[in-house]
């Protein structure tokens, strides 16, 4: 009898230990308490909220106690709406941001160190280099959806007519002098050699993306000095001044939508910012020429994705920007709730959802599970563009680790209050490259101190 009792007790113990182990292994099964998670999402890809609804349905099969409320926003009001909610303490549990704005939320005190709440072992799924985009002061604040590679695109026939070996450029890159020669040859009475979207807020994109030409891959150098006070910046500004004064590029701000129209209508040879995804847009427009749905005045264009050219002495890089989801603290946040938030956040940033989101942008997922899910997907992309995109992905440099929220915030302020306005004036021919550079240095020295700014050449 005693033996039987001992056996029963032992069995009970083994079973309870086993169930505990099972629970620990599936750390996601944290609690079956009902919880509501709010997410604010702009149209990251076409029909994103519809896809989100499908993913929520799948997620709820695993976690029926977690209810997800989606607030759809437009790109136009995403930031101001999010910031207003954050300031009032009513931030959504999850928000979508571009990585450069991370500092604002860290500075506000609403960003959360996700390593404390992430399901165990899940962080390893994400590419470590890409997590760097969501890291400030060595703290990880969000999960990336994709890293967009932003460079230039062009009309293949025009480029070849201008003497450019397109295949070589796509696979090996090109120098700034080769680029300058190409846009010189490509400029005619009806066509600009080069058009970059640089009106309004897109001016910052112009600086970031075209900055890689002069070796400026991030706001800060590896030793955390502000980069836009370097000699590289002056070289970049001189180059822009030369391109505009030569008439190879419009001397007025070009709206974001206009530059693609100019490419499709043959009014420019090379455009920016451009992404691999534009191949689909241009092909759709080509198809519409016959049935009249294309942009008025369209010509047949074979779109080629191009790397930015490189000036002498700089390391070739490609500007990449991480789009990420960020968990946020609000008036109702508890540790238990944050664990639930991270369950859902991890779900939509990995596997099938990540594969779909990145794939629709003609990009590779930035997590292992996403790439596995993408293996079965095919893209309607030319070989040359696929090769150029793959090459550019390998050239993306994540921001240096150790940048603080305050540094990031100050860099954003200088960009918006000095660089963007002065760049608009430079484009309009109302200031010189040197005057603009001096104004940037003055503002940067005020914000970071002279020692906090790089004034030499960044190789």
């Amino acid at each position, binding site marked *: 009898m005693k033996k039987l009792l001992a056996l029963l007790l032992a069995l009970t113990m083994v079973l309870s230990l086993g169930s505990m182990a099972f629970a620990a292994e599936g750390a996601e099964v944290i609690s079956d308490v009902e919880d509501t998670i709010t997410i604010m999402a702009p149209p990251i890809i076409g029909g994103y909220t519809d896809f989100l609804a499908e993913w929520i349905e799948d997620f709820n099969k695993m976690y029926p106690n977690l209810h997800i409320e989606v607030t759809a926003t437009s790109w136009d009001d995403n*930031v*101001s709406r999010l*910031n*207003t909610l*954050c*300031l*009032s*303490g009513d*931030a959504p549990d999850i928000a979508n941001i571009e990585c450069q704005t991370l500092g*604002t*939320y860290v*500075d*506000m*005190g*609403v960003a959360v160190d996700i390593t404390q709440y992430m399901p165990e072992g899940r962080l390893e799924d994400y590419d470590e280099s890409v997590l760097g985009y969501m890291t400030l002061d060595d703290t990880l604040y969000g999960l990336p959806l994709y890293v967009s590679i932003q460079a230039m695109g062009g009309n293949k026939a025009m480029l070849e007519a201008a003497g450019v070996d397109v295949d070589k450029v796509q696979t090996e890159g090109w120098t700034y002098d080769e680029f300058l020669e190409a846009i010189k040859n490509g400029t005619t009475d009806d066509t600009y050699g080069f058009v970059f979207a640089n*009106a*309004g*807020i897109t*001016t910052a994109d112009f600086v970031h993306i075209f900055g890689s030409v002069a070796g400026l891959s991030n706001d800060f150098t590896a030793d955390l000095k502000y980069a836009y006070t370097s000699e590289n910046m002056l070289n970049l500004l001189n180059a822009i001044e030369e391109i505009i004064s030569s008439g190879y590029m*419009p*001397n*007025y*701000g*070009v709206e974001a939508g*206009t530059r693609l129209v100019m490419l499709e209508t043959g009014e420019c040879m090379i455009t920016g910012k451009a992404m691999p995804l534009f191949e689909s847009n241009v092909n759709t427009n080509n198809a519409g020429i016959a049935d009249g749905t294309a942009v008025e005045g369209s010509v047949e264009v074979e779109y080629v994705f191009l790397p930015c050219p490189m000036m002498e002495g700089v390391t070739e890089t490609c500007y990449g920007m991480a789009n990420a989801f960020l968990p946020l*603290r609000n008036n109702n946040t508890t540790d238990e709730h944050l664990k639930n938030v991270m369950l859902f956040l991890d779900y939509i940033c990995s596997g099938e959802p990540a594969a779909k989101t990145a794939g629709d942008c003609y990009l590779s997922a930035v997590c292992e599970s996403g790439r596995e899910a993408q293996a079965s997907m095919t893209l309607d992309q030319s070989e040359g563009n696929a090769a150029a995109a793959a090459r550019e992905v390998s050239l993306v440099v994540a921001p240096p680790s150790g940048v603080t929220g305050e540094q990031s*915030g100050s860099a*954003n*302020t200088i960009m*918006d*209050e000095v660089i*963007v*306005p*002065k760049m*608009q*004036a430079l*484009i*309009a021919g*109302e*200031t010189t490259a040197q005057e603009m550079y001096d104004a940037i240095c003055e503002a940067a020295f005020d914000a970071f101190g002279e020692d906090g700014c790089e004034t030499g050449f960044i190789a």
Partner: protein
Amino acid sequence: MEERKSTIRKRGKIRIREDHISGYLFIAVAMVVFLVFTIYPLISAIITSFQNYKPFGSTWVQLDNYKTALSNKLFWKACRNTIIYTALTVPMSLVIAFVVALMILPFRRGSQSFFKSLYYIPAVASAVVTSMVWIWIYDSSDAGLFNQLLAFFHLPTQQWLTSSKTAMLSLVLMALLSGNGSSIIIYIAALMGIDNTYFEAAEVDGATFFQKVRYIVLPLCKPTTLFLFITGVINSFQVFINAYMMTGGGPDNNTTMIGLLIFNNAFKYGKYGLACAQAILLTILIAVMTAIQFKVAGSDVEY
């Protein structure tokens, strides 16, 4: 009668009669709205202006936000831009509204209503929509409406919103051509309130049209003009949406208004304390301007 008007004694001296209570009840809703949506935010903004505001744990920073605001070159540039914008738009708007009202007045009631509606449409339309239309009108490429007009007359095209020479002027022109509906209606109401006997007497004396305007219409419309001038200046100092939508403050911050600067600090950079300090400074500036206007122009005006 005395019994019906029962009184409530309060602290021995202040007497609130029953009909006073009904009066207070009538204004209660408006008072609550005023307190909640005007006074409370104002007090809250004053408090926040002394803080490094964070949603979860603000810290007191005394006058740091004010010092930062006042030592910021962009703040002063925004003040200058706002004053220039106000100086150009408000007087011109009044002149346009007054002239249009004078032109509409002689029409019959139906035609008057038609023209009043026509001029008021921009006020009904969303400012964002209006701005989008004006962005197309000012497009720097040859596709822009104004540039098409210039090209038609073989004149060089302009970078309306992207050149420092024309950006502010473009915003002013937009304000002048699309923002006079309310003023026109108020002026028409004022003109219709002038007793016809003044005009009859003037006609007997052989006064011309311009003499009637100079000696009858303008003096009798002075309270309306002062009202429109003061509210116009206040609104102009708070202008935000057209610079936000049309130029983003550029080029070279030449169209950055104080309202846009406050918005950017609050909702773009999350510097809510600094934004509140700038808003309080703007309030003080508007209050001073309004007081000066009342002092200078309002001494002989009775409402």
